[in-house]
């Protein structure tokens, strides 16, 4: 990546005599969509209530349920007060001040590709602009607002989950800085959802602020992209399909963290420890974070994506010229157009990921630890990092690196809770750092993992949190490599057939869109060939090259835990006709734990995300069916189909496992 594209927004602040002065700067913010009638938060809410659609709806309920209309009006007002954003410039400035102070303390730098921001500002003004950042941390919210404040962009209206709403003081602070709140989708309250949808509609058509939302719906615990959610996106796009706005511009944004604030929490969550409820006291506790060093943050703003251009002629051919406009809804055909846009955004977010040296170290260390080899020495590591960096860049990775020695040094400093140099300068993971005191075993979402298993697993899972961001670059190549390892001498067609199967099976872990699969395949084949990782014989058949053994192993090791999770999940599913989700999670983890006793199984295989993703993907391929059971979600299983999938996957499960067992590993370190 070109280091010059980025500037550190903290840099000028380091020289400020007083940050107060900066925070009180005169604001000349660019707005997203100039309106003839300047909207205010209360005008927007009022307009929602008075909208013919809402009024008609209320009258209907009033008649049907014999509830006085005034009462319903008041209900809607309450809902709107719960949803609606506010804007308090004083709070924004104050927050700016506090944030700058905190960031200066805990961050090495917040790097932003400022030219992109200038470009975005230049196209703002004539239609709604939607910021769509990746979501890896709570810090995303705050950073986005800080960036907008810094670059004189009107602070966006931010779609936030209700979890924050409940937090004392925090809820109102967030609201004052532009957050609007959205309940979780499993809530079925029609009055609420009708009101919420109308609020978004109003915000898009008559608002002038940019809107910010997280297309993945929630923070990704695994630090890699998740399947996009369509609900809010549909609401945002509705006015475009109804032609109530000229266009809608989406700005995909990637926020990469050298160290994620929630890394430990996420690791626990992935293993099944439930997410603690958001509370202000927990927030203050988390302020202990300011003692730590979080390294760098990179915010990459993508090219503005004009949805009108994206949807092209389709928009002009949609026929909705009869009937009152306020009663129009998206058609099924409209809705079927929208996923391609959301996947495009996710794809761009992924491509813009910034990788740090730590991500490379994590991949290399993981490979080293899962092979029965000596621990890496510092020099070996450095050499391998340089080698890997060169390779990953061929796969379009953006790696933030200035001086390799200082980068490695910094990585060890920032991630001292994950990796360390042993006494004889060998690289190992930190194992005895896991504090299980606060965990209530009874609340685990999956199998009751023993303390021993937890202690063994958490460091590996944390390591994987830093491997995952690399995977979108190499997963295609890794799949091709593992296919060729199992099926040497394959034609391009047969590789693609197998690749297609795997890519679809892992669709939720390595997010992609079906239209992209053939393209990505071809691209990966080309890179691998150019790079002499695979070769094509004169008869048109492909094989792995002999001399890239190391890279082959690294690629394979990077996806092995996923293969294993999925395989085990399929094995469990095969034994049922119908089963609760909870039970599947428990049994899969149980089986993996059992296997771990005997041989090395990567503990990341235990992660519940992958198991859930496997289920989702099987639902998509209609191998299983998601139903409502007595204890929440359950699945009806088509055993024949599941067995078929399992059998197709089985050859890729490598036996015997090459890795060291954890026991050995633990033992050796104790010696």
């Amino acid at each position, binding site marked *: 990546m070109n280091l010059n594209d980025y500037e550190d927004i903290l840099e000028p602040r380091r020289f400020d005599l007083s940050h107060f002065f900066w925070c009180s700067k005169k604001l000349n913010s660019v707005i997203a969509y100039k309106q*003839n009638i300047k909207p205010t938060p209360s005008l927007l809410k009022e307009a929602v209530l008075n909208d013919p659609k809402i009024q008609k709806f209320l009258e209907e309920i009033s008649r049907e349920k014999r509830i006085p209309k005034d009462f319903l009006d008041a209900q809607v007002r309450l809902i709107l007060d719960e949803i609606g954003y506010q804007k308090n410039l004083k709070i924004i400035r104050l927050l700016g001040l506090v944030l700058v102070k905190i960031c200066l303390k805990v961050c090495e730098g917040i790097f932003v590709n400022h030219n992109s921001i200038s470009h975005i500002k230049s196209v703002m003004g004539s*239609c709604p602009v939607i910021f769509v950042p990746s979501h890896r941390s709570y810090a995303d919210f705050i950073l986005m607002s800080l960036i907008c404040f810094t670059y004189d962009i009107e602070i966006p209206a931010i779609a936030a989950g209700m979890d924050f709403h409940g937090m004392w003081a925090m809820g109102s602070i967030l609201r004052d800085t532009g957050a609007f709140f959205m309940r979780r989708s499993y809530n079925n309250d029609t009055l609420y959802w009708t009101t919420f949808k109308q609020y978004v509609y109003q915000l898009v058509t008559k608002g002038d602020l940019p809107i910010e939302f997280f297309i993945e719906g929630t923070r990704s615990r695994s630090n890699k992209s998740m399947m996009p959610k369509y609900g809010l996106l549909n609401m945002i796009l509705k006015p475009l399909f109804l032609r109530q*706005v000229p266009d809608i511009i989406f700005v995909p944004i990637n926020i990469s963290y050298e160290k994620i604030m929630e890394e430990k929490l996420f690791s626990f969550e992935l293993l099944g420890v439930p997410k603690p409820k958001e509370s202000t006291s927990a927030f203050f506790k988390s302020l202990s974070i300011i003692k730590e060093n979080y390294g760098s943050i990179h915010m990459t703003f993508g090219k503005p994506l004009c949805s009108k251009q994206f949807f092209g002629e389709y928009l*002009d051919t949609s*026929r909705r*010229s009869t009937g009152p406009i306020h009663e129009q809804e998206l058609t099924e055909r409209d809705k079927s157009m929208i996923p391609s846009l959301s996947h495009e955004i996710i794809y761009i977010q992924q491509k813009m990921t910034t990788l740090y040296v730590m991500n490379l170290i994590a991949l290399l260390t993981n490979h080293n630890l899962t092979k029965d080899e000596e621990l890496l020495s510092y020099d070996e590591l450095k050499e391998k990092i340089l080698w890997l960096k060169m390779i990953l860049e061929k796969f379009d990775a953006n790696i933030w690196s200035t001086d390799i020695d200082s980068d490695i040094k910094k990585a060890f400093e920032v991630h001292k809770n994950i990796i360390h140099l042993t006494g004889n300068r060998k690289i190992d993971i930190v194992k005895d750092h896991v504090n299980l005191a606060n965990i209530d075993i009874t609340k685990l979402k999956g199998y009751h993992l023993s303390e021993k298993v937890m202690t063994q697993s958490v460091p590996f899972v944390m390591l994987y949190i830093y491997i995952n961001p690399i995977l979108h670059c190499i997963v295609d190549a890794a799949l091709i490599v593992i296919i060729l390892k199992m099926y040497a001498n394959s034609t391009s067609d047969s590789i693609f057939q197998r690749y297609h199967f795997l890519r679809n099976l892992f669709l939720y872990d390595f997010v992609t869109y079906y239209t992209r699969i053939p393209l990505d395949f071809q691209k990966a084949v080309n890179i691998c060939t150019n790079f002499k990782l695979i070769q094509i014989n004169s008869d048109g058949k492909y094989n792995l090259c002999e001399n890239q053994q190391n890279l082959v192993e690294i690629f394979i090791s990077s996806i092995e835990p996923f293969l294993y999770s999925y395989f085990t999940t399929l094995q469990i599913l095969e034994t049922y006709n119908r089963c609760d989700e909870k039970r599947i999670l428990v049994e899969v983890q149980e089986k993996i734990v059992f296997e771990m006793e005997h041989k090395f199984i990567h503990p990341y295989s235990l992660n519940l995300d992958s198991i859930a993703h496997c289920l989702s993907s099987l639902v998509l391929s209609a191998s299983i069916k998601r139903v409502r059971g007595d204890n929440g979600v359950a699945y009806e299983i088509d055993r024949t189909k599941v067995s078929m999938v399992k059998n197709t996957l089985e050859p890729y499960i490598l036996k015997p496992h090459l890795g060291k067992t954890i026991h050995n590993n633990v033992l050796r370190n104790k010696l």
Partner: protein
Amino acid sequence: MINEEKENSAGNIENGSSKLNQDNKKFQETINVKSVVPKYRQELLKWNGWGYKDCRFEVNAGDVTSISLTGNRYPIAGKNLPHFEGWVKNTFNVDLVNPTLSQALPEEDKYPKTLLIAEELVRIVRLNIPYSLRGVDRMLRAHGQTLHDIFTLRNGMFERIPDIVLWPTCHEEVEKIVELANELNIAILVFGGGTAVSGAVECPVNERRTIISLDTSQMNKILWVDEANLVACIESGIIGQDLERELKALGYTTGHEPDSYEFSSLGGWVATRASGMKKNIYGNIEDLLVHVKMVTSKGVLEKNCQVPRLSCGPDFNHIVLGSEGSLGVITEVILKIRPLPKCTRYGSIVFPNFESGVQTMRQVAKWRCQPASIRLMDNEQFKFGMILKPDAGLIGSLIDILKKLYLTKIKGFEFDKLCVMTLLFEGDEKQVKEQEKRVYDIAGEFGGFPAGETNGERGYMLTFVIAYLRDIALEYRIVAESFETSVPWDRAISLCANVKQRIAQECRDLSIRHFLISCRVTQTYDAGCVIYFYFAFNHGDVSDPVATHHQIESRARDEIIACGGSISHHHGVGKLRTKWYPQTVSEVGVSLYNATKNELDPKIYLRRII
């Protein structure tokens, strides 16, 4: 004789039936109208632009450039327009120097040769109907007033023009022409006032048959006026200003006043479903039309009575209305007439923004208290109107400054957002007063306030003058065109915004940096309104400005239709908008049209819509 009787009858309409028979008889005589526009149009009208030859915007380069409208036909004529140059510079980045002048009227041998063969000529001459084979006459009837037409006139030549021009003087002569065309397999293009903006009168390039241009202009008599029923029977070739002048002399008006009414013809109005500025009181052409005769190759389509309404299956008047010269030749029309209003008053209202203006119009329409005309100009058009403001002198300028200060400082209007509505009231004094009050009250609710009569009057006067601007624009490398649509109320504002944005986007994509897109709401209905767009750009280095303009306008029409607007409110389909015809009327609609076409004109002697 007619004039004398006018004195007796004017204002006596309500005086009981005893007088009616008498009146009725008196106006049975045909009025042979002497048209303002001569048979050889180019003697009075520009051959390569809009309107009268003696009216054009002229740039006088001296120490200080001054711009004015020549002639003395319009109120601003002869007055210096001091804001013109600066605005043009700001909007289009154009300096008013080095005009690109039009070619001279081509020499007789430069026109496409007539394809008429001797045998056909003999037969035509035998009809004893005036004709011309001159190139210039044929060329002047090969076009309307689209940008493409004018650009071609100024810089090139049409590939195909009519082979002969015929000037029938009555219905029977038209019948003879159509019959002969049938017999000899000759195509006919009907030509009226020459103001079409749909490409309808352009000759199909691939038409290898002889083409007759049937010019209706000499068929312009008022055959009779029936005061008892308040209708008049008029030949289709009469142009608006002649018709109104003659009726005015009798104390009547049709009240039909499209912006082109100085030059456009009755037949054209019927054929395109025209709409007049004062339709709120008098109705559109379809409301005015009581009876119509159309000569088709199967005979004459007409009804046997002159009744106000009839229930008798589908109304075939509506086959004629909007037929755009594709089903037959309209020859005689019975139109409603109304006594002249006693009181006419203009008005204007300033609004803080476009939305509040549209909301006002919607309310006015809702309560059906529209004055004769109510129009809303957007901010760009308001500013554009300012350039046609004559030099007001020192005091006048001071007053203007004060007015502007009042608006922006005291009323808190933003100069870049405010909009102006112009109003025209008609009726008796009392009615006008009531109407004024209602409209101004409604406007007040939406933040508008009256801005005086003069502004309103100027607005309407400019309607006629604006058309002359395109010619000077072309001289300075700016191409301009207007297009219109109708739209339901609830989509009007978003349609305007989206079309403007779409055009801006298309311009950006084509690297056109200096352009103007502006709109106005020109008509209100119960269920919606009419929007007129003006689009112009500095074509600088664009290699084919007309095609580029056409492309952008076509995208804008896509946008309009996607936003719930129509293919056209009153300009018609012509050749420019056939693309959107099927989706507008459905496939069944297309076959219904084709079936009608096959019935009335099986060999396609006339043009076709689709």
